[in-house]
């Protein structure tokens, strides 16, 4: 036994056929996708000085010359975010409860899951495209889009959280003879609440970031101002807007960490 025995690291995928199949498939895809990318290097090269100019415009960014537009846009983005987060979460609670296997009858479950799947599939901006057609240009269309996105996001996570909760605690409360709503209030809510508050903050953060692009399709927010500044090559103003967005996201993220700690 003690004669030389060679050793090699066992491969990650044990079946050789599958391993080689996946490897060649992956390589083939890479080659094809890079091959079909059609990069126009002349155009890219022409872009270099523009990129330099763009980066230079961050030092310093220009907060002043477009300040009324910028502030109006930021404020609009903020209130769009508040309204859509609140509406989205309020609507997602019944849908999320419905989409929980251990809570709802089967047909409610299927319908709720269907609603969640559809609202999650299409990015907010596509929904906004249609909302603009239906409700006209302006922030209302954006709010609709963000609310629908929030329902899909929050409802799904809520449903998963409830499905993952400790069944023993839930059973114990049920055993006391509590009604359905009492049961929800005493066993489900305490278990999922801290995480859901954190996720609400997170969704607020997402909605704010999304609201910054809805302007591209005319659904309100800071996006419109930003695009105008890009189109006019006023990069210093664009830089200012981007920095404000980053700053607000940081503030929201920091305070959400704080609130989450406070809740737990």
């Amino acid at each position, binding site marked *: 036994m003690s004669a030389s025995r060679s050793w090699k690291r066992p491969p990650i995928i044990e079946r050789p056929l599958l391993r080689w199949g996946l490897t060649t498939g992956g390589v083939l*895809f*890479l080659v094809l*996708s*890079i091959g*079909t*990318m*059609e*990069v*126009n290097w002349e*155009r*890219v090269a*022409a*872009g270099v000085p*523009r*990129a330099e100019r*763009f980066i230079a415009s961050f030092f310093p960014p220009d907060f002043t010359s477009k300040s009324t537009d910028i502030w109006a846009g930021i404020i*609009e983005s903020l*209130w*769009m975010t*508040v*309204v859509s987060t*609140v509406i989205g979460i309020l609507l997602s609670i019944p849908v999320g409860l419905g989409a929980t296997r251990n809570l709802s009858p089967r047909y409610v479950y299927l319908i709720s899951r269907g609603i969640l799947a559809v609202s999650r*599939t*299409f*990015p907010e*901006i*596509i929904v906004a*495209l*249609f909302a603009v*057609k*239906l*409700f*006209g240009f*302006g*922030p*209302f269309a954006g*709010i609709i889009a963000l609310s629908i996105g929030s329902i899909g996001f929050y409802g799904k996570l809520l449903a998963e959280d409830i499905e993952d909760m400790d069944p023993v605690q839930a059973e114990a409360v049920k055993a006391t003879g509590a009604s359905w709503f009492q049961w929800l209030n005493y066993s489900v809510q305490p278990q999922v609440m801290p995480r859901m508050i954190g996720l609400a903050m997170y969704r607020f953060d997402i909605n704010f*970031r*999304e609201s*910054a*692009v809805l302007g*591209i*399709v005319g659904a*309100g927010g800071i*996006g419109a101002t*930003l*695009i105008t500044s*890009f189109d006019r*090559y006023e990069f210093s103003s*664009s830089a200012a807007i*981007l920095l404000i*967005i*980053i700053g607000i*996201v*940081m503030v929201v*993220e920091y305070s959400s960490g704080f609130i989450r700690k406070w809740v737990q």
Partner: protein
Amino acid sequence: MPIKQQSDIKIWKRRSGKRQLGIWFGQFIGVAIFVYCWQLVSENTIWMFVADAPRQAVDMMERMVPPKWSYMSNLWRPIWDTITIATLGTLMAVVFAFPIAFLAARNTTPSSVFVRPVALFIIVASRSINSLLWALMLVTILGPGVFAGVLAIGFRSIGFCAKLLYEAIEEIDEAQVEAVTATGASGAQILNYGIVPQILPAFAGISVFRWDINIRESAILGLVGAGGIGLQLSSSIDTVTWTQVSVILLVILVTVVASEWVSAKVRHAII
């Protein structure tokens, strides 16, 4: 103190008076903010259009059927581009996110005073800016096309992947790292033997998860000219060819569902 002794009965309240007051105050502020914001919405909305919307929606749906299937032949290339953008963008993000995550994690950063804040700033900046905004910038700089799309997806995803990854790094089991250190391994070897094996599943999971999201994101980059199926979508909407729009929506739906299936399968296989 929730329990108060009052003559000889104990009165129990869930919270002390001060705390309860604080909570009510918080709730009041919250409702006030919402009402104020709603008022702003109201001012900025033409309710006549909103009232008209259901009829419009029905009308739009009616004009969407039947989908114009012959339009599919124009869509294969955009679909391919969409997948290309998502995949190459994710690949690029993962390559950059990996080292950045190590620089950002408290337990692996070379310097928590100089390097870590820089890494964290890169992460926040990348995450805060929507991929559509990245695309907008890159199209302005590099011109329209798939390349700008790949970079946009890449830039946006670096922060996402690096954030999740550095959180995973901060949660590793230090005892395993210590054990490898005790053998006299060098820094690079400790990384290779003690840390990387622990975060590899998380890393793979994060990459696939982001790829799945990126399929969705790259479907809209066409709106600003960065390649993919979004271009067809916006032009079909602009020209009010609703029968094409429905085909495109179905295609996006199928692609997204398929990518979600793949991602779930792969993540299941890893864990």
